[in-house]
């Protein structure tokens, strides 16, 4: 007994000693790596002379982070993981009873989202809630909707589309231009924008039907750029880089959200504030997201949805079963584009201003990253990924306390892409199939068993 205790104790000290040793090494490496990058900095003074600034404090912070991180990793995290692995291997596979939370996850999430604006208003006051409803709520939900739309093309049908933002742009400009030139209302133009985007989806779909994989990706990328360049150069209609401004706001059954006598605030007897419009927009995009989810879930159980997934799994087998792969691909493009277009027209009404700058390739990449990170095909996973990615970048703006550590010139949001990339690498190493890697079958005889991600294919195009 005492013997065992002493061996574990000696093992413990051994691990600590190793952790200390490795942390010193990590510190030395960090010092070597960053001494010239961080420790010394050259600036120009007024006379264009180079001045060497020394930043030993910052360098020390880097080194300490590396040392502490390595120490914790070796001393605690690694033994813990090894132990967990051993336990998992030893314990027989027990059928896990799903908890109440995971069973009703979507219901709880929807309820939470519906309650979100009033709770935020109650917590932070009317003016304080503006940021939380707009930057966090609406912004994230737009991306959720876009990613769910792209999910139909990439996640279900397995067609890699790098130019998805083009449909977002088509939707946004459809609303912006048709409402300024023709004066049509938002509620009329919302479906119109969706239809126009769907048409463009088919237009894009036709030439790329024969392409697969990398070739498809490149052509869709080019398509996205074409749309953006048309928007920039067709100045008579789109006003080029200046963009279209003063886009009409949405109304609720004809009630305007403004300071006028018959505006929403006045009618409801509330103090005048722009928050009501934002809250209205929040519920609007929430509704649009739910429609997207509903249609996607419904479609997956339809023959067309199954054909999309079958197309992702094996196109030749699809053809041998009498499935017209041309129309199947085109409907996937059209459906994805339609949701992108609707999200676009919402974007236009929310911003009140659209310019080609909002529809750069980076947006496509972010939406695609959300889909991949969330787990292709999984609505829940994608929603979580959107919250992490978009919410995460918004959170960076809030981290003012970082200035206390890194000095007053430190702006965390500039590190957005760095953190973004790092997070993606970490998630892809940790969960190569995204947050939700398994696939929910669309039909079952006896029990619904999730299909492990190792069986599903990513599609060939």
């Amino acid at each position, binding site marked *: 007994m005492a013997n065992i205790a002493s061996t574990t104790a000696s093992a413990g000290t051994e691990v600590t000693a190793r952790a200390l040793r490795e942390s010193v090494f990590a510190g030395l490496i960090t010092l070597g790596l960053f001494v010239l990058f961080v420790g010394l900095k050259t600036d120009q003074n007024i006379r264009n002379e180079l001045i060497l600034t020394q930043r030993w404090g910052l360098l020390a912070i880097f080194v300490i982070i590396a040392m502490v991180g390595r120490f914790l990793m070796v001393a605690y995290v690694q033994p813990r993981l090894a132990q967990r692995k051993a336990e998992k291997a030893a314990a027989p596979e027990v059928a896990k009873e799903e908890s109440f939370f995971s069973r009703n996850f979507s219901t709880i999430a929807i309820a939470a989202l519906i309650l979100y604006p009033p709770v935020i208003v109650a917590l932070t006051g009317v003016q304080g809630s503006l940021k939380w409803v707009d930057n966090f709520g609406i912004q994230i939900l737009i991306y959720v909707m876009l990613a769910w739309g792209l999910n139909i093309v990439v996640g279900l049908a397995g067609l890699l589309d790098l130019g998805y933002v083009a449909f977002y742009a088509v939707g946004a400009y459809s609303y912006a231009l048709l409402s300024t030139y023709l004066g049509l209302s938002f509620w009329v133009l919302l479906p119109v924008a969706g239809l126009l985007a769907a048409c463009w989806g088919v237009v894009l779909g036709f030439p790329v039907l024969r392409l697969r994989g990398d070739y498809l990706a490149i052509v869709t990328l080019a398509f996205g750029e074409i749309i953006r360049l048309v928007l920039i150069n067709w100045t008579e209609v789109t006003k080029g880089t200046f963009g279209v401004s003063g886009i009409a706001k949405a109304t609720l059954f004809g009630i305007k959200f403004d300071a006028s006598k018959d505006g929403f605030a006045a009618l409801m007897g509330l103090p005048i504030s722009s928050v009501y419009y934002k809250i209205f927009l929040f519920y609007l995009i929430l509704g649009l997201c739910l429609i997207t989810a509903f249609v996607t879930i419904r479609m997956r159980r339809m023959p067309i949805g199954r054909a999309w997934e079958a197309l992702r799994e094996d196109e030749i087998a699809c053809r041998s079963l009498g499935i017209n792969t041309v129309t199947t691909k085109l409907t996937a493009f059209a459906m994805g584009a339609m949701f992108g277009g609707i999200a676009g027209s919402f974007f236009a009404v929310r911003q009140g201003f659209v310019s080609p700058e909002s529809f750069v390739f980076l947006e496509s990449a972010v939406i695609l990253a959300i889909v991949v990170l969330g787990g292709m095909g999984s609505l829940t996973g994608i929603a979580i990924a959107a919250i992490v990615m978009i919410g995460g970048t918004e959170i960076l703006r809030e981290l003012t306390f970082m200035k206390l550590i890194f000095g007053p010139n430190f702006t965390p949001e500039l590190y957005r892409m760095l953190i973004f990339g790092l997070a993606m690498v970490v998630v892809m190493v940790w969960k190569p199939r995204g947050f939700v890697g398994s696939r929910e*079958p669309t039909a079952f005889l006896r029990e619904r068993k999730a299909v492990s991600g190792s069986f599903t294919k990513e599609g060939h195009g």
Partner: protein
Amino acid sequence: MALETTTMTMTQDPILKVEHLSMRFGGLMAINDFSFEAYRGDITALIGPNGAGKTTVFNCITGFYKPTMGMITMKQQSGKEYLLERLPDFEITKHAKVARTFQNIRMFSGMTVLENLLVAQHNKLMLASGYTVLGLLGFPAYRQASREATELAKHWLEKASLMDRADDPAGDLPYGAQRRLEIARAMCTGPELLCLDEPAAGLNPRESHALNELLQGIRSDTGTSILLIEHDMSVVMEISDHVVVLEYGQKISDGTPDFVKNDPRVIAAYLGVEDEEVEQVIEQIEEIEGGQGGTKQ
């Protein structure tokens, strides 16, 4: 023997007629003026050494290749005729009712076994769901059709003895079960002619015996005619009614399994002949051909 083949042609009704089929890949003549007929209700085997062009014939029949020359006629029970070389591949399954399987199994591995069988009923369900629109709105017609589709899937699961794996991903099945699933999936499209590309490849004797039973069951229960490529002679000789032998893209023999088994050209093609025996084999062949011509006249 020769008499038998000729009478067979006269009494039986061909479901598939391949006439003067040629397929050229660049400078390679993969199939050269190949003609044969498959009869309704028969199991027709297409055999031949490796590289003889069997799979190419299949790909021409099922529309995956467009033949350089020739005509492929599918005659349905109803009397409707389809010229397969003119149809795009998916319409061959959809309208002409010719289904196929592949030499290297093509499963929808990330979908469950049941889903695989439902995908095969796409066209029927698509119609019932009003091209998705009515189904999306929740019309009962689609629910009814989808119940029927599940019933049909269950029927074939039972036949292929895959019932207890119905909710598992297809990629998780063992090899033999995947082969059976592929056949069940092809049958779910409701074909009149089922084309199987080496269904017994990689199966152990017990599994290939089960496959024989499955194929014979398909023929007797549904009246589906079967055309198969096979290397496993135990399968070919046991179940097929009619064997066509292909070598270097040309037909070298055509008849009942017994006839083909004893055909010197087939033996020569499979086993090769010693140099000194070549003369003898040619003589034998000429003798048979002379005899055949005599009876035909």
